């Protein structure tokens, strides 16, 4: 059971790859015209002759997730008995690292009597412009110089930054899988697992996968987890209903009324839980729920620390640390010492901050204009204007109406509006 089903049932041969006939023919023909490949394979798959195919230095497989891009390449390597040298998005892909890995792979002779080598750059659209410095250039250099076939995959190859890659490559599009094809594969998996699956149930899984076979197989494995051998439409409905859409009021109610830490924490697993929204609503509701200042400040202390974690995560981009922040914002806010019995119905107010921000947009805009203007003309920073000079200005304006009139003229803001800003 250790193997995820998407690995266990990954096609081993070209023929097993479903619903991508056109792409398979093109890819095989390219290999057969430019590189050494078994005769039977080429006779079966590689009969397309085309200038575009024979001249391409590399192939770029494009298509949405879960349609078989990587699988096709793995199957191809197996069919033609090539060793696969693979770099994917989880590797660091700086120029140096790419050359190192590919270079080593190409230099060393294979142990197992392969007929050749095939380089696969998986998910090239995951190349990060900053972190994978020079990665794109390194790939291009390898395509230009290597004597072995190079294949790449991408969800969106039409990103302008891939222009140089596209110019060198033959772009082969893989299409979204049809519902029927997905159902067929799911049936095979069910049989393989010795499970009895209602066709309607599989169809429902296929429909919500939107042509992503990987997602569909993962879902199936989830439904059949724990050794279940039968899958019915009712199972899917039941599992589906386990996570209904909750309103923010219901989410708050679950958090505050949770009996223990874990119950509050579990709210974050609900699909309708939006943590950014939650922070704003928790900020609003804490004093309403706890009333007493001692309790309120304990709950705010936790929310404040959670917000610190969020701040750090945003700066360092270490999103894997998010659970700690959420745990504190949910469990920490919910479980305070000497928590009173909460009434059955709590009136959670809509966050006033959101209303205030919407209502005061104009005032804030005028204020910013004034501050910017002062900062520029007085050769000081906006923060100094905010912290000091606005108070000086308002003290001066109190005794000299002239001040406001002059500002009004320079800024084109009516003087009453300026007065209200001070």
């Amino acid at each position: 059971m250790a193997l995820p089903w998407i690995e266990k049932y990954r096609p081993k041969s070209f023929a097993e790859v479903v619903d991508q006939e056109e792409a398979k023919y093109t890819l095989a023909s390219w290999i057969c015209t430019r590189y050494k490949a078994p005769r039977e394979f080429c006779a079966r798959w590689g009969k397309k002759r085309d200038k575009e195919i024979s001249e391409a230095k590399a192939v770029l497989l494009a298509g949405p997730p879960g349609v078989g891009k990587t699988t096709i390449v793995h199957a191809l390597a197996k069919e033609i008995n090539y060793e696969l040298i693979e770099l994917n998005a989880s590797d660091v892909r700086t120029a140096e690292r790419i050359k190192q890995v590919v270079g080593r792979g190409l230099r060393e002779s294979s142990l197992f009597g392969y007929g050749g080598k095939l380089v696969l750059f998986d998910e090239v659209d995951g190349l990060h412009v900053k972190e994978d410095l020079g990665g794109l250039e390194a790939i291009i250099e390898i395509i230009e110089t290597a004597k072995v076939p190079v294949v790449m995959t991408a969800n969106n190859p039409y990103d302008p930054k891939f222009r140089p890659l596209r110019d060198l490559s033959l772009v082969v599009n893989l299409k979204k899988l049809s519902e029927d094809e997905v159902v067929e594969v799911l049936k095979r998996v069910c049989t393989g697992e010795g499970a009895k699956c209602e066709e309607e149930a599989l169809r429902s899984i296929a429909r919500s996968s939107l042509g992503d076979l990987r997602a569909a197989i993962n879902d199936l494995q989830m439904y059949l987890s724990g050794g279940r051998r039968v899958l019915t439409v009712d199972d899917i409905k039941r599992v589906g209903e386990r996570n209904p859409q909750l309103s923010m009021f219901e989410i708050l109610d679950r958090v505050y009324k949770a009996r223990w830490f874990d119950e509050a924490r579990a709210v974050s697993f609900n699909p309708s839980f939006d943590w950014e929204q939650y922070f704003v609503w928790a900020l609003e509701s804490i004093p309403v729920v706890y009333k007493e200042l001692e309790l309120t400040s304990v709950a705010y202390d936790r929310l404040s620390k959670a917000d610190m974690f969020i701040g750090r995560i945003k700066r360092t981009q270490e999103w894997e640390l998010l659970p700690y922040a959420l745990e504190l914002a949910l469990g920490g806010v919910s479980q305070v010492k000497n928590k009173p019995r909460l009434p059955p119905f709590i009136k959670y107010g809509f966050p006033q901050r959101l209303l205030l921000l919407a209502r005061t947009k104009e005032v804030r805009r005028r204020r910013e204009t004034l501050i910017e203007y002062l900062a520029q003309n007085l050769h000081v920073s906006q923060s100094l204007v905010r912290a000091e000079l606005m108070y000086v200005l308002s003290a001066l304006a109190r005794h000299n109406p002239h001040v406001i009139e002059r500002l009004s003229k320079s800024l084109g803001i009516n003087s009453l509006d300026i007065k209200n800003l001070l």
Partner: protein
Amino acid sequence: MAELFWFEKYRPRSFDEVVDLEEVKVRLREFVKGGNMPHLLFYGPPGTGKTTMALVLARELYGEYWRENTLELNASDERGINIIRERLKEFARTAPVGKAPFKLVILDEADNMTSDAQQALRRIMEIYAQNTRFILLANYVSRIIDPIISRCAVFRFSPLPRHLMAERLRHIAEREGVTLKEDAVDVIYELSEGDMRRAINLLQIAAATNKVVDGNAVAAAATAVRPSDIVELFNLALNGDYLKAREKLRELMYIKGVAGVDFIRAFQRELIRMSLDDEVKAEVAELLADVDYRLTQGADEEIQLAYLLARLGAIGRRAKPTAPPPKKR
């Protein structure tokens, strides 16, 4: 418009008008005479003449064309190093007007930049070294990364000594037809802590109501510029009226645009004057320091300040056992 504020109206326009900083002037004069200079770093507390000296240098270098040849940027106002890079690209594209062979970039509050941004700045300085010179202004030199410091001629700016500040204030008072009493100078010097801009602001506000400015008039002026609305918030919170305090907080944050740190600074200044037990003061001081730190780390300022107000309320309630007990539940 610049005339509105005396500190701007009387900002020195030439080396000769600057009353202090003799060594700095000597060396800057050399640069102007030679027609060339390295990048410069001016550091020192606020109101000690860094901006003034940079602008004076621009005028001395370019004469009437100083505006065309100078780009003033503020590191904390520009949103990120990329904006700075864009504005520089535009500015450095054209040749300098007049006889100086380079243009001038004045980057204020350079020490507010992260060290990553400063690294990027360093590269930018190199790229445009051909036809631009930078003057970096900072409060703390320790917050500037070494590679930048080593590329700059560094100048330290110290607070004005009392007699020179007094001289300048008298000069301004005379030009504005205001009588300045000697005790007023003392109070201004005390309150401004050597910050010339603050000193002139105090003088101007005091003079707005009194033709004769004495110590009392200055003290009144100081109260006028106290951020009274923030002080009011502080009192609301300490009295435990959380919901009212929150309303006030939002008004200040979202309508008046007061930044998180400004609340802390104002609270901190106010704390010393409050009639609270020293134990309580110590507890509040610790809280303020903690929240100041949290503000630098956090993502949402209102969350941090909400915590501050609630904790202040809890501390205030404990400190006043004589207050009516909270309603029984």
